[in-house]
């Protein structure tokens, strides 16, 4: 019990994180690629089409997991910001920057796949309903966090980005509940934490595999981006110089 702060301390050191994550990386990459490929191929070729939507519903196997992670990743980013603000941990701010990039890209993909799904099902690529608009706000929040992190140098940038990330957490439950609170064109949640899921098991199982696969893929991307941030932040340290010279020396 007494040893956990030390263990946490070691993982909180950028150098130690770089070393340990380097070892985990190949395993994570294989797991992420394997699970998401199984899920996507299952969903694209083997799952039944939807009775009303036909095959366009197969976009869900991409849209749903990516949207989930765009939201969950925002909480992760804000949490990293809070840890960075309170405990002044360098690695936390690096995680925030990494999560902002990955999250912005995931939100973009969620909006894009949503538009391409909306056209054949609803009859329009875009509509300003509460769900889609709040998702667009999430995209701008991510971009804002990235921009603030680059606007200044050093600690001020870190703190400004963390504050914006924390303020923006308000938007996440709004996105999630928007389909229940307001009339939207977007349908309500299919997979519910409480209550019955309204999707046939033959369609649901590949979706759950896709969700698991994209969680792994997100973890992989986050680690890759954090590692790049570590090198950028620590480029003047001795261990990075040794690493650079050792690589091809």
């Amino acid at each position, binding site marked *: 019990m007494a040893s956990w702060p030390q263990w946490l301390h070691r993982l909180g050191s950028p150098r130690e994180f770089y070393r340990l994550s380097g070892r985990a990386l190949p395993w994570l990459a294989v797991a992420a690629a394997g699970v998401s490929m199984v899920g996507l191929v299952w969903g694209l070729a083997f799952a039944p089409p*939807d009775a009303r939507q036909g095959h366009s519903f197969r976009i869900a196997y991409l849209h749903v997991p990516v949207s989930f992670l765009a939201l969950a990743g925002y909480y992760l980013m804000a949490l990293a910001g809070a840890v960075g603000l309170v405990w002044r941990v360098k690695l936390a701010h690096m995680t925030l920057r990494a999560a902002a990039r990955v999250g912005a890209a995931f939100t973009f993909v969620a909006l894009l796949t949503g538009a391409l799904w909306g056209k054949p*099902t609803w*009859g329009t690529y875009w509509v300003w309903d509460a769900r889609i608009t709040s998702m667009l706000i999430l995209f701008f929040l991510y971009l804002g966090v990235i921009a603030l992190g680059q606007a200044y140098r050093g600690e001020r940038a870190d703190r400004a980005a963390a504050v914006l990330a*924390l303020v923006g*957490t308000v938007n996440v439950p709004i996105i999630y509940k928007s389909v229940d609170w307001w*009339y939207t064109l977007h*349908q309500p949640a299919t997979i519910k934490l409480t209550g019955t899921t309204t999707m046939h098991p033959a369609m649901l199982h590949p979706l759950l595999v896709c969700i698991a696969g994209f969680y792994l893929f997100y973890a992989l991307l986050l680690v890759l981006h954090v590692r790049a941030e570590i090198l950028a932040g620590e480029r003047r340290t001795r261990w990075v110089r040794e690493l650079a010279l050792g690589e091809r020396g």
Partner: protein
Amino acid sequence: MHPVRRQRLLAVVLLVAGATVAVGLLAYALRQNLNLFYAPAQVVAGEAPAGARIRVGGLVVPGSVERGGEGLEVRFALTDGAASVPVVYRGILPDLFAEGEAAVAAGALAEDGTLVADQVLAKHDENYTPPEVAEALKRAQEMGEAGTP
């Protein structure tokens, strides 16, 4: 916890709480404006502005869809169970548009209370079923007593 860190943690909590309250009040004040469409009962009660472009959403009343003689004109009614609004639309309907299913029509209300729509969108629900299963469910429903859609 170190007093300085406790103070910073408190600042973080206050920041998030403050933002939540501010946005919550804003959303409450704008709650009607954040709806994409009016329900038919609201339109019939006169809550929707006449003449302005509005959207009305509801279920397409079964048996109400009439395809007019001239071109692509379609007439149907949208209902929320409490009231229904007649809609006239000229154009191509989305694939998922069907009687008994949800749709959203955008346009302006005419004098007689008809919505002259320039856009009709299909709204689908959160249920996903394979065609075979949907077919079986439909057959089972037809064999039983007439169920409400």
